[in-house]
């Protein structure tokens, strides 16, 4: 059996709590990645 789990984002950093009034441009990219996380469950039969 093969299982595939892909995670586009793995992080525990909370960019919204950074407290910066004028966030650097890269902050938006970081926050956008923290807002969503994708997982494929294809091939995980037998796991659930």
């Amino acid at each position: 059996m093969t299982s595939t789990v892909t995670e586009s984002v793995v992080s525990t950093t909370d960019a919204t709590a950074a407290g910066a009034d004028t966030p650097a441009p890269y902050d938006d990219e970081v926050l956008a990645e923290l807002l969503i996380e994708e997982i494929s469950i294809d091939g995980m039969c037998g796991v659930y």
Partner: protein
Amino acid sequence: MTRYALHPQVGLRDEAFGALAYHYGSRRLTFLNDARLVTVVRTVADHDDVDAALAAAGVPDRRRAAYLTALQRLADAEILTCE
């Protein structure tokens, strides 16, 4: 102007961290890790435009760009439809 709506093949389930979206076609799970983003995803089709949906959900102006990027990624993942 871009208009988003929840994809008809996607189910949303509220969770403590935000919500879990499941696409019945692609069988992909997507975690929405923010309550305001969940609100936007649920309501964006009810508003005239995405800006109104972001404002109604309480997204701060300085974070709009991040949310717009997240919405585009959700559209790329077919969690949202985009026209």
